[in-house]
């Protein structure tokens, strides 16, 4: 049963059945041929060893009998008689060939011949004992006729057996060939269209980049392969969609600061200086350029994180100071939202300051984006067993599953907040940076509408 479960209709098993069938046919043909040839050889050996030899011996005995005078006993004839009884008498022979020959005689209805041989041999013995020369000659002549007839019948039986063997070889050969063809066709029909479908699907994907599910419902190796290809292609297609979405979001995000930079720059270049506040224009250009460079850096780091090449250069740093600085830098970008910081002093860790600064920007940007207007984002840093930064959002109406999705690569917030800050890389980069620091970043729901982000870094 266990074997039957394992022996499923796989391609290998189908081919094994096909090859097994061919092998069985070949073995059957060889066995049939060997048996036929062995049987024919035995028949001819028997024919020579018994009938031909006995006919020759009978001939010599007849010559001996012809030279005898009446009433004289011949030792040679008596030796012949004993030898014939011992070796050549078909009716009483015990060799396999003699037994088979008797069966052949039975089959063709020649049962009288062995009886006649027995009678003639008995008569010959009596004639020899009496010195009856004419009787001896007559019996020897009859015995020779019987043996000639035996030889003739045995030759016919051997020929018949060879004919039968040829017939069966032909039948087995034809049946084997037909069976092999049928099995081959079955294997081809079971495999070839599916392989063609698979290949055309792969080619279509190569040429167009679009993936149509192969959906092979079988249970064999090809179905396993098809499902694996399906999974692979759909992962590639999904990555491609993700990449396109990312490029689209990245382009959108990059265009936002570029729009104001270009707008103010072109205004400075063409409009009269007294028609607008030029110092404000320069300030906006400066701020937006800084924002743009930060965005580009974040996108670059996200790309590196995606390929596993995030370079990590740790040095001792004051985490309290870094968090305070980032919060201060972000303040100008906040409108109608504020941070409520609670930062413990002098928490030192071993980390990459540039990377952690990006991580904090990503995390705090997401937190601000998720928080409603006129709300406070609570930021607390503690340093007991590890540097633990918690970011609490109050009154967020964004469902938790969507917040969790922000940890996926290239997942961005689809909401625009009016805060002048957006993160096109979601929390993916943040989590990757924390991960290279051997820390962890996660989000949990403190209560309804109150998600809390926790960043923990080893001290």
């Amino acid at each position, binding site marked *: 049963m266990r074997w039957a479960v394992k022996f499923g209709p796989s391609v290998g098993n189908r081919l094994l059945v096909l090859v097994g069938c061919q092998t069985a046919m070949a073995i059957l043909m060889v066995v049939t041929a060997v048996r036929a040839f062995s049987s024919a050889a035995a028949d001819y050996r028997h024919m020579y060893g018994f009938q031909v030899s006995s006919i020759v011996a009978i001939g010599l005995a007849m010559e001996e009998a012809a030279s005898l005078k009446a009433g004289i006993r011949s030792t040679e004839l008596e030796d012949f008689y004993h030898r014939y009884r011992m070796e050549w008498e078909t009716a009483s022979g015990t060799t396999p060939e003699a037994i088979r020959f008797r069966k052949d005689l039975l089959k063709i209805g020649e049962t009288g011949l062995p009886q006649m041989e027995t009678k003639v041999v008995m008569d010959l013995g009596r004639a020899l004992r009496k010195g009856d020369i004419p009787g001896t000659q007559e019996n020897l002549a009859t015995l020779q006729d019987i043996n000639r007839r035996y030889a003739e019948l045995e030759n016919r039986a051997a020929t018949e057996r060879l004919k039968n063997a040829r017939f069966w070889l032909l039948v087995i050969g034809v049946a084997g060939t037909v069976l092999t063809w049928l099995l081959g066709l079955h294997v081809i029909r079971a495999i070839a269209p599916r392989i063609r479908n698979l290949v055309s699907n792969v080619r279509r994907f190569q040429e167009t980049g679009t993936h149509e599910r192969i959906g092979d419902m079988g249970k064999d190796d090809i179905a396993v392969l098809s499902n694996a290809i399906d999974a692979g292609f759909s992962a590639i297609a999904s990555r491609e969609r993700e990449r396109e979405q990312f*490029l*689209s979001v990245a*382009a*959108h995000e990059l*265009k*936002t*600061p*570029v*729009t*104001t*930079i*270009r*707008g*103010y720059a*072109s*205004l400075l270049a*063409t*409009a*009269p200086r007294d*028609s*607008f*506040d030029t110092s*404000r*224009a320069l300030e*906006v250009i400066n*701020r*937006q350029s800084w924002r743009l460079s930060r965005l580009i850096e974040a996108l670059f780091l996200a790309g590196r994180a995606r390929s596993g090449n995030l370079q990590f250069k740790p040095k001792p740093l004051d985490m309290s100071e870094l968090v305070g600085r980032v919060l201060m830098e972000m303040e100008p970008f906040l*409108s109608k939202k504020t941070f409520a910081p609670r930062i413990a002093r002098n928490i030192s860790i071993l980390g990459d300051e540039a990377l952690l600064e990006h991580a904090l920007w990503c995390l705090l940007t997401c937190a601000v984006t998720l928080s409603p207007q006129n709300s406070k984002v609570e930021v607390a840093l503690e340093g007991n067993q590890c540097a633990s930064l918690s970011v609490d959002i109050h009154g967020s109406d964004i469902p938790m599953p969507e917040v969790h999705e922000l940890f996926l690569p290239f997942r961005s917030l*689809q*909401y*625009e*907040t*009016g805060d*002048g800050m957006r993160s096109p890389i979601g929390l993916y980069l943040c989590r990757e940076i924390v991960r290279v620091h051997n820390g962890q970043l996660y989000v949990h729901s403190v209560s309804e509408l109150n998600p809390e982000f926790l960043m923990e870094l080893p001290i």
Partner: protein
Amino acid sequence: MTTRVSRDSVLVIDDDPYLCELVETIGQTCGVPVLRANDCSSGLKILESESRRIKMILLDYFMPGMQPLDCAGAIIERAGSTIPVVLLTAAVDPSARAAELKISRWVSKPFDASTLINLLTESSALSKKSRR
């Protein structure tokens, strides 16, 4: 550069405060008053109260608190046929986005000041023509 004085105003609805400020500054240089809204509902409120002053609406694609199609639909409905709506978008495919929102005109971000000046002054000229 020609600077025209017009009583007609342009309403810009964009969640990026820097962009609203830029449009307002450009409006100053060509004498077009600019009304600012940072989200769709604020834009609808301004449109309700100041519709007589507004000659053109510059609308961003993404708006906080409302889906783009709903926001554009509400703005277009409130604006009626007299106030043209122009889509301001940083999307890769601005024409497709405009068609999606059933808006016939669009300006792709980033743009330079002259593009917006031409748009605002065209609006002023149109409004003057219509008043005659």
